[in-house]
């Protein structure tokens, strides 16, 4: 069974600084997908970034990028130039190619401080 672990329940970062959120996962599949979702306070959960396991190149979406270390089963999210609007719960998730539904980690609450 897939598992996803986020070891940082809460983090904070100064506005304009860079922060990295950690995520490790475990799966027996060779092909799988990894995601970061964001849930702003009292707002909908939305997708931030996604990565295919067979692609070595790290995914990037504007200020968001990942550090995907397949051998270590690590998938961290880096947020550059943090903004107040980045304040949210961040969830790491894993999908083993549709065999089972998405599995989420316990989340990291990120606060961006002005």
């Amino acid at each position: 069974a897939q598992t996803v672990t986020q070891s940082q329940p809460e983090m904070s970062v100064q506005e304009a600084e860079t922060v990295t959120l950690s995520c490790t996962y475990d799966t027996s599949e060779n092909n799988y997908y990894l995601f970061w979702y964001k849930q702003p306070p009292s707002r909908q959960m939305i997708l931030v970034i996604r990565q295919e396991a067979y692609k070595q190149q790290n995914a990037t979406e504007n200020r968001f990028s990942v550090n995907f270390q397949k051998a270590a089963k690590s998938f961290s999210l880096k947020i550059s130039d943090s903004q107040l609007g980045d304040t949210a719960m961040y969830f790491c998730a894993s999908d083993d190619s549709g065999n089972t539904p998405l599995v989420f980690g316990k989340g990291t609450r990120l606060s961006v401080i002005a």
Partner: protein
Amino acid sequence: DVKVTQSSRYLVKRTGEKVFLECVQDMDHENMFWYRQDPGLGLRLIYFSYDVKMKEKGDIPEGYSVSREKKERFSLILESASTNQTSMYLCASTVDRVSYNSPLHFGNGTRLTVT
């Protein structure tokens, strides 16, 4: 843009009541999901459905049931609400089983309090 609508944002029910949480999506998505979100526990899958009239148990189905009579609507039912079911409930849908091709679209959530 895909819209997933949960009928209630806040709900307060008494122990033992039968509770219906409704979720409707407007993009003809095949797959629908109910998650429960609790502090320190993240999102846990209760039930999901890959087609009309189909349902599958997730990780924590005990005390819950679901109904999917129409493609766009997926209802979560608490047969006899208990205080340990006080939680935030999130509905989501996707067009494709493989999440990479079609990310989950979430509703705004229903915060249920059982007293």
